[in-house]
């Protein structure tokens, strides 16, 4: 039975249940990242993914129930104090500038993982995220379409001086999932598997001793800059970090 969690109302304190989960069926998939060890396609096992990223309202309900994750209380090792929820007015008040339906940002990997676990879910893996994000409104894999790439690059080019839009405003892709592009960066469970050299120009020359038998993580499709930039972003982060453009959504196995 599919478990559907209803999108919560504003300021809900009763439950911090996330938005609805959408089923993503199993499939074969060629990641844009060329893993030297794998032979071509990755196999994606069917899973469920949140329709939208987690919002400020939902995260607020979460920290009400689990005060150890509140701003100011979360231990340094799990959320860097200078940035964690720094845009919220206080630990339990969003404040005028922060809208409830915006995706929550300035959250660390630890806090995002904790949120997902609290509802019996987890963060999606990079492959699951990339697989779902390869789709557009009509196609399962739009990655070769230059127009699709340009529109994604367009978001990267815009500065952060405009407030982030609310979730749910972009058209759903062919799976029924929204906001995978054009809104925020998103944490994945295995962000730390982005074993890219910090100097991204060395991609095809793996530092075998730095990455212990490094199988070079290079780009199979060098023109997919949209994905390249997501990988660059994730590879620059430590679990304890947060940024003003980085949020998350949760995934869970099929029921």
């Amino acid at each position, binding site marked *: 039975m599919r478990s559907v969690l209803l999108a919560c109302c504003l300021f809900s304190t009763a439950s911090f249940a996330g938005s609805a989960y959408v089923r993503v069926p199993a499939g074969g998939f060629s990641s844009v990242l060329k893993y030297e060890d794998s032979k071509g396609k990755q196999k994606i096992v069917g899973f469920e993914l949140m329709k939208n990223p987690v919002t400020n309202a939902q995260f607020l309900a979460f920290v009400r129930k689990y005060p150890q994750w509140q701003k100011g209380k979360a231990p340094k090792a799990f959320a860097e104090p*200078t*940035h964690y929820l720094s845009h919220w007015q206080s630990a339990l008040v969003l404040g005028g500038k922060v809208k409830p339906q915006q995706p929550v940002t300035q959250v660390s990997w630890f806090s995002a993982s904790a949120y997902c676990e609290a509802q019996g879910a987890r963060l999606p893996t990079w492959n699951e995220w990339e697989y779902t994000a390869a789709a557009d409104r009509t196609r399962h894999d739009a990655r070769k379409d*230059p127009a699709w*790439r*340009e529109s994604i*690059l*367009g978001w*990267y*080019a*815009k*500065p*952060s*001086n405009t407030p982030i839009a609310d979730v749910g405003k972009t058209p759903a892709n062919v799976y029924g999932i929204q906001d995978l592009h054009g809104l925020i*960066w998103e944490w994945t469970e295995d962000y730390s598997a982005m074993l*890219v*050299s*910090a*100097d*991204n*120009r*060395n*991609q095809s020359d793996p530092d075998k001793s730095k990455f212990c038998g490094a199988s070079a993580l290079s780009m199979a499709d060098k023109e997919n*800059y949209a994905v*390249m*930039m997501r*990988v*660059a*972003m994730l*590879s*620059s*982060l430590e679990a304890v*970090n*947060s*940024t*003003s*453009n980085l949020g998350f959504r949760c995934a869970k196995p099929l029921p």
Partner: protein
Amino acid sequence: MGAIMKHLVVPIIIAAALLSLSGCKSEKTDEAAATTAAITDTGGSAAGDFGPPQGEPINAILTSPPLVPPPTGRSTPAKVIVQLEVREVEMEISEGVKYTFWTFGGTVPGSFIRVRQGDTVEFHLKNHPDSKMPHNIDLHAVTGPGGGAASSFTAPGHASQFTFKALNAGLYVYHCATAPVGMHVANGMYGLILVEPPQGMPKVDKEYYVMQGDFYTVGKYREKGVQPFDMQKAIDENPTYVLFNGSEGALLGDNALKLNVGETVRMYVGNGGPNLVSSFHIIGEIFDKVYTEGGSRYQENVQTTLVPAGGSTIIEYKAEVPGTGVIVDHSIFRAFNKGALGMVKTSGPENKAIYSGKEVDSVYLGDKAVSAAPVAAAATATAGGVLTLAQQIKAGEALYNGTCSVCHQSNGDGIPNVFPPLAKSDYLNADKTRAIGIVLNGLNGPVTVNGAKFDSVMPPMSQLNDDEVANIVTFTLNSWGNKGGRVTAADVAQVRKATPRPQGAAH
């Protein structure tokens, strides 16, 4: 020894002598060359380590373009702390055209960094919390992996630090090296770091910082609004803008670089690319010195010098005359159609010996000019009071061909319906005083000549004096079947006095 050998001995000895002589000679030349090279070589990085830093750590002064930090003035190596912040900023790339630049220090190009060879540089790279992207830095002055890129990969809202020793003197580019590198560079993430030679740069009156870059937008050149970056155009190396210092007006108008006559100037010139090589030239100036590619040796007396993408050059000259020098990339369509244009305004007293400005503005007849000899002869005769009719006619012909034949034609036929004929002209023959008046004052409105109607405009011939008018009219009266006769300078003077000059006539 046999007879044969005896014959060979001398040649052999001579040959041997010659060989050894030439051997000595080339050795000497080699030695001399080697010595010359040894004196002027800087020794590169092997000779660039002057030991540990001395004294208190120094906070580097960074400047925004087009300004350059002052010389370090040091003679010992120091520890220099550089704090450079990355900011993603929306700014105008051209009037009414906005672009999201990714910058070092909030400007394109980024802040200018100045250190001395042998300095230990503690580099802090900060990525502003509002940035969307992670960034890093590759300084071409760094000897080390990625030029520092491997050690400076920084997420938004965080900072990185690494330390390097500047072993080589020179003018070096720095730029972001985060994937995709081309996009980060195309968005303006580059600047210059100067590593002074141990003795410092020779003193000049002014120093400026200029850096060229190519930019790629979805919209056309000068298409208004917020323009996004166009990746395909960048791959195709087809820029929309080619600019100095990141925007079309960066070095124009009030932002032009300023100099005074008599001053020496040095420009630290970089090229961030990402794609194009620059043919750097300043219209109206010659570079007395060019430190090719920003290295240690200079060439002299250069008009245009190449600046590689990801490279630099240093140019010096002395301003000798006032005026505006125009900085261009001499691949000239870039200058006039894509914005690769800047200005250097030099003020001060003129020096006509070097440049006079326009001296003469004279009529150039080209192939319409005929020999002016008869005119000269007539002038002399007139002066001597002995001008003959024949001389007048000859002079008049020369003048007619230079002035009147353009419209009335050399055979006096004019052009039907446009310019009236002078040949066998009933109008001309009827009244020579009227003819003089027409040459002096012009003629507007309808006339009938030889039965044909004309309605044109003849301008007053203000450039002719009395003698010239007299000679021309005399010539026409005596040509092409006209009735003949003579007009004197005095006749012309009288008509000139008696008739009003029309508006616009000179005199």
